[in-house]
């Protein structure tokens, strides 16, 4: 027997070595990913059959596309003539003829430049918010944009929008000045100053300015809005307003102050417990009962407000999840450094909580954008049903079915897929746990 000893001393540390080369090749990939077990093989074959079936049925229809025709019957005649009497085919001619109604609704065609520039400027306004590489100065335009867009879309005198904007600026300035003397005072002043401005000063100022400098452009009423113009107006407005409101509600729900907490919980649970359509009916019918007689405030604005409240309740719950996921230590560290509540929230808690909540927030936004099609129930022309029904009411296009839905579906997909991709980009960019 050899002498054994437990003592061992390593003189040289082993250098790392390359891993063994894996056997590459198509066959290996197939075996590992598609046919690794009998069950997997069956599932693979069944899946392949479903894909083949879908393609086999939709391909003839798509390949028999007709782009130039004046009516559905003309389309059918062309298809029958080219591919035989039994052939089916897609009649895209309806999109070619009516695409502008899907995009702009009944907006006057000579004024299309207005929604188009509003849409293009939207990207300028979004750029500094979405991408940190864009110069911060552009944020000024982001603040001005909602007012500019409202003026361009609805027309009329720009001074009303300017007066509203001035009210916000005054409120902000009052807050900055008053915050030296205490936060409660600052908040009350920041609410009182703009309110007083709007009630007493804004009207006369607006009329005086309108007399002095005439900048009014042609008015376009809300019932002229439709299609994606309407969906994007409500969607973007709702997204922009529901995020801050949702964050405040989430903070309110976690607040130590009983009244604020109770109000937040009540609001969130009420809104989430009611279908959106109910709220839209409230917007179109009930809201007028609560307003002084004779006031007629815009249906799009009313819908916008209720869509915002609806989305905010969902955002609040998503953000609350993010807040709850943060370790207590983060709050304690912020406290122990002497940061007050708002500074701690803004600098430490929310940046992390919102990062965790990105997928949920974007899901809510996507859901809300698709839900804008529900405005058809309060008499607005959404792209999916409102405009499609209108197009089908034309004798020429009576009976057309799939093509408008596919077209509208593709555009919705484009918007929503971009949002989803952006959220993935953002998650990646904010990833900090790299080791």
């Amino acid at each position, binding site marked *: 027997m050899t002498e054994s000893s437990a003592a061992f001393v390593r003189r040289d540390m082993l250098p790392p070595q390359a891993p063994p080369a894996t056997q590459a090749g198509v066959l290996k990939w197939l075996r590992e990913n598609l046919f690794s077990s009998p069950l997997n093989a069956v599932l693979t074959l069944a899946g392949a059959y479903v894909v083949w079936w879908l393609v086999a049925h939709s391909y003839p229809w798509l390949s028999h596309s007709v782009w130039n025709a004046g009516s559905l019957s003309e389309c059918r005649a062309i298809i029958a003539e080219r591919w035989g009497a039994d052939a089916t085919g897609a009649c895209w001619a309806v999109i070619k003829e009516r695409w502008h109604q899907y995009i702009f609704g009944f907006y006057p065609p000579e004024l299309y430049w207005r929604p188009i520039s509003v849409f293009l400027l939207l990207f300028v306004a979004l750029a500094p918010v979405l991408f940190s590489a864009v110069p911060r100065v552009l944020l000024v335009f982001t603040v001005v944009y909602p007012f500019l867009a409202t003026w361009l879309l609805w027309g009329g005198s720009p001074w009303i929008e300017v007066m509203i904007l001035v009210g916000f600026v005054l409120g902000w300035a009052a807050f900055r000045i008053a915050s030296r003397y205490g936060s409660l005072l600052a908040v009350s002043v920041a609410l009182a100053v703009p309110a007083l401005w709007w009630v007493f000063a804004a009207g006369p100022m607006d009329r005086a300015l309108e007399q002095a400098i005439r900048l009014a452009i042609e008015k376009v009423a809300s019932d002229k809005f439709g299609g994606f113009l309407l969906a994007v107006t409500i969607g973007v407005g709702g997204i922009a307003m529901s995020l801050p409101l949702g964050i405040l509600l989430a903070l309110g729900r976690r607040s130590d102050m009983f009244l604020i907490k109770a109000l937040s919980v009540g609001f969130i649970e009420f809104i989430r417990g009611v279908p959106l359509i109910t709220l839209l009916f409230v917007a179109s019918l009930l809201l007028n009962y609560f307003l002084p007689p004779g006031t007629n405030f815009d249906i799009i604005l009313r819908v916008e407000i209720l869509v915002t409240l609806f989305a905010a309740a969902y955002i609040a719950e998503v953000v609350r999840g993010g807040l709850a996921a943060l370790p207590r*230590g983060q709050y*304690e560290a912020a*406290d122990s*450094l*002497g940061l007050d509540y708002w500074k701690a929230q803004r600098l*430490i808690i929310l940046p992390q909580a919102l990062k965790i909540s990105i997928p949920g927030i974007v899901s809510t936004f996507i859901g809300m954008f698709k839900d804008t099609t529900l405005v058809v129930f309060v008499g607005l022309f959404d792209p999916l049903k409102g405009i499609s029904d209108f197009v089908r009411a034309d004798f020429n296009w009576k009976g057309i079915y799939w093509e408008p839905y596919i077209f509208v579906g593709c555009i919705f997909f484009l918007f929503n897929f971009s949002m989803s991709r952006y959220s993935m980009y953002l998650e990646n960019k904010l990833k*900090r746990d790299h080791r």
Partner: protein
Amino acid sequence: MTDPHFDRAIDRSQMQVFDEVAIQISAMNKWYGTFHVLRDINLTVNRGERIVIAGPSGSGKSTLIRCINRLEEHQSGKIVVDGTELTSDLKNIDKVRSEVGMVFQHFNLFPHLTILENLTLAPIWVRKVPKREAEETAMYYLEKVKIPEQALKYPGQLSGGQQQRVAIARSLCMKPRIMLFDEPTSALDPEMIKEVLDTMIELAEEGMTMLCVTHEMGFAQAVANRVIFMDQGQIVEQNNPHDFFNNPQSDRTKLFLSQILGH
């Protein structure tokens, strides 16, 4: 008892005279619900004193130091820190918190900010120090804890010991007059404990008022002016480290010391 960590223990031969009171706690009680966590605590900490608080887990030692910057609220008695009494007045609380630094067991660095941003955040937003100046101060303290080269990394990229040193530097950037340590080395690998303790010893040498909850008895022997032993929410014994370790008075203290030093 000798401990290889503490080859450079503080020279206590020329005892300083502590005549200024930094923290005064009198007849303080705290309950969690119906559970009486802290019972009739009376403690005076003089400026420049280094106090180690020891005791079994659940004895209330962490809760005690967390009451000093009001991360925990006490229900009766009085806590005066640097002449400011801690009440529910938010202004006083923020004032005390900006004067008292705290280091946590789990570091609690802000993971979404770089090391440099972690260090400059509170000076900029609480003390209103200009950004440049705050960054200079931050770099000074990072040099001091010997990791200036990590300034632009994120906390997740640093080792535990490095993170804890950053946490100490973050507190120091607020120029606190008192430092609280809540088991600063308990979450660290043995190899990293020394680097954190070295930083703390350096701080002690400069005359910082320190309250430290720790199980590092070697540190207590080398650095503390006073060791406080707590059990069941009460201060059971306090003494200078020499007498505390060599001549403990109460049976509970003797048992505790035999258990942690007896291997």
